[in-house]
């Protein structure tokens, strides 16, 4: 079988966000593979290590920086990578059109994508890709097993979690808790330099953005930051309750 795993290179969650000219500035900031996508790479590798014969292809759509995420995935152990390079900002619905075409061309039967993008906070890519391929999907997967062509596992639903079974082909969106992604080892990093990382252009996919990005701003709510010293426990407790009752007026 062939597994596609969708990747993005994003601002590290620990980095502070800056904006210039009404847009988020990424220059001089630490960028990493989206951690939500990393769980999909790891899960694909684990499926193969469990004895399933599979080729794993990492796919990215977007700016030049996405190449770094693909290189990380190659170093983790995926077999090859495809980067559809474009500076056009494509929303998830538009990107799903590219991923679906690549999945069809590559005859993939399983696609992994992160449950939520750490930069655009979108949840849409997995489900939109599944719809274009007329495949079923499972989102927010926290446990997964593949036997033959049957997937079983657990995922998060509106309230609590659910166990599921599903036949391939399918799209799975991943999240924290599914696995512990590995770090690339030096020998694997060396080996990965010989692996194929193919660049493709967007024009062959007949895709245009579905959304226009008007602007971005950081709205910081000014907080009072009245922080009390808790060494004198009764005094601090009394003062806090007084502030909440009589200043903030948020409790009775």
């Amino acid at each position, binding site marked *: 079988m062939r597994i596609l795993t969708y990747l993005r290179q994003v601002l590290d969650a620990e980095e502070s966000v800056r904006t210039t000219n009404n847009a988020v500035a990424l220059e001089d900031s630490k960028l990493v593979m989206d951690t939500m996508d990393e769980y999909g790479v790891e899960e694909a590798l684990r499926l193969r290590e469990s004895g399933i014969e599979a080729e794993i292809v990492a796919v990215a759509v977007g700016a030049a920086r996405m190449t770094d995420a693909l290189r990380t995935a190659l170093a983790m152990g995926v077999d090859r990578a495809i980067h559809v390079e474009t500076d056009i900002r494509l929303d998830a619905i538009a990107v799903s059109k590219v991923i679906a075409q690549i999945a069809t061309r590559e005859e993939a039967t399983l696609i992994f994508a992160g449950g939520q993008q750490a930069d*655009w*906070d979108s949840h849409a890519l997995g489900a939109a890709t599944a*719809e274009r391929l007329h495949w079923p999907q499972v989102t927010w997967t926290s446990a997964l097993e593949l036997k033959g062509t049957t997937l079983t596992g657990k995922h998060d639903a509106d309230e609590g979690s659910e166990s599921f079974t599903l036949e391939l082909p399918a799209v799975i969106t991943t999240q924290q808790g599914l696995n512990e992604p590995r770090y690339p080892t030096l020998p694997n990093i060396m080996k990965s330099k010989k692996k194929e990382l193919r660049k493709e252009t967007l024009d062959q996919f007949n895709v245009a953005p579905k959304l*226009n990005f008007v602007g971005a701003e950081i709205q910081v709510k000014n907080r009072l930051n009245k922080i009390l010293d*808790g060494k004198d426990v009764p005094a601090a407790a009394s003062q806090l309750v007084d502030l909440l009752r009589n200043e*903030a007026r948020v409790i009775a």
Partner: protein
Amino acid sequence: MILLVVEYANGKVSKSTWEMVSAARELAHTLPGESPVTALVLGSSLASIAAEIARGVDQVLVADLPALAQYDPELWSAAVAQIATEGEARAVLIGGSRSGREYSPRVAVKLDAPLLEDVIVLKAAGESITAQRYTYLARVTETIAATGPVVVITIKPGVFTPASPGEEAAEQFDADLNLPTPRLKITGKTAERSSRVSLAEAEIVVSGGRGVGSAEGFTQTVEALADELGAAVGATRAIVDAGWRPYSEQVGQTGKTVQPRLYIAVGISGAVQHLSGMNKSKTIVAINRDAEAPIFKIADYGIVGDVSQLVPAILTELKK
């Protein structure tokens, strides 16, 4: 028309639906021409739900079918896309719940429509619909615009003021649907404890993290404080993973997003993933041993000290 898909639980229309009614009305005001708000109710045994939402919208479409007894993304997206097409909907409003966020992209693809996700501000401007939403783990507010005959929109819960039901009930119609056979089989569900007010609907939320020490520590501090204040209980990812608390209480990137009037963080250091689920709360209180913890940077009030001593003292003070 503006189509909105009703969310409900335990035989009642959810607060998120009344928030969607407000969002739909705001959008209708800014769209050119008449835009009646139509509610679509999907499920089985829906009479009371349909009657309740009828007092908030202009028209109700009901698909009350045994086949819809359980939510499924393929069923829901097929039903919503069909009704949107037949009714020539200008906008389709879907709740920003976990299920809404997973079937709405399918609706957008079926309709060849743009998708505005987790919207906090919504209005029409000429030919387009513009929206604001949070990005970068809720640290940035972004403005986006969608153009097209129909736009699919998910509404972030807890942001729009919930509409109140009126006196008159709108007319109800049965929806005739062509439904696919669902392929995802749900074989089990975790039970949900819900003796307290739910996180999504709570005015006050008390949450705990590793700093409460143990599952027992959580009960003695966070739960005791929540019960005194009539608040919902929240938890960080770390202690849910540790098995101290159920997933349904998790607040943050991979859990729930809350915006209560008062959020009390007990023993929470404030990882950015947790902050993204609560940083829009009106007033934030932090109680933590570590003065350098990031939670204090976004707190209005806080105490640096021992949680296990401070919380009982606060309880004593509250009872005075």
